[in-house]
């Protein structure tokens, strides 16, 4: 199973995504500073929304919507970075 260490690691990442509803909903450092120093109003709305604010659209239960967003994002990022790294090293492997 040693060669499949990344599969276990991915499951750990998905487990992390599944506890995301427990995250603090307080504003983060930058948002807090922007609120306190009075420039939060400058922030513009996004021109479109996909899974805005890590809440999966159309799911009534907010915790479940957050978990779904987290799971989707975690899988997308794993695939994107793995795929990118695989593509970038393709030529090197062909030369080898």
């Amino acid at each position, binding site marked *: 199973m040693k060669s499949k260490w990344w599969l276990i690691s991915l499951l750990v990442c998905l487990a992390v995504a599944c506890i995301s509803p427990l995250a603090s909903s307080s504003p983060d450092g930058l948002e807090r500073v922007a609120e306190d120093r009075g420039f939060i109003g400058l922030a513009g709305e996004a021109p479109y929304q996909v899974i805005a604010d890590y809440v999966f659209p159309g799911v009534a239960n907010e915790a479940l919507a957050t978990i779904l967003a987290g799971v989707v*994002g975690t899988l997308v*990022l*794993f695939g994107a970075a793995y795929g990118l790294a695989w593509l970038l090293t393709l030529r090197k492997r062909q030369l080898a």
Partner: protein
Amino acid sequence: MHIPDGFLNVATVATTAAVSVGGIGGAVRIVGKKLGEKQVPLMGILAAFIFAAQMLNFPVAGGTSGHVIGAALAAILLGPWAAVLIMACVLIAQCLIFQDGGLLALGANIFNMGIVASFSGYYIYRLVTWIAGNTRKSTLVGGFAAAWVSVLLASIFCAVELAVSGSSPLGVVLPAMAGVHALIGIGEGLITTAVLGLVLATRADLLQLQRI
């Protein structure tokens, strides 16, 4: 620390975008040349972990929260150029899919949390392990220091960008950003150290690979 649209002026947007495009271009070239076969899945795992971990905002003082950046961890495990690429993947996905961080501010966010945090974290880690030797303890201490400095420096660059853009005077925004992120950096340090401890216990060989 994801900057939304509206906080930065055109000159800052253009400058940070140009630097980030250049940085990603360099990272693509260097990673393509040097990344080992063993490191390909690690790229995916780190991007997935950093995305998931960034969702876990932890409370810091006075109704404020923070989340890890993760660049220092990626830079320690894979090297700064690979970390830039991982952070770019995470930040682009967060911007395009999750509306976290503005479209125009994407370059600044990649610069602060990708380039600045990765390189500062990497060289702080190298410095500590160079001074204290290549031991388990120095890896953990170096990881904590790297993580803390990376968050602080990223927040300082963020504050300078906000000030240059005229959103808030430097004398106001710089101490405010650095102050709160000095606290958030402790969380980043603890999580980075915990993950490095886990890697040392289970896959210590990953820490012996060439850094890119």
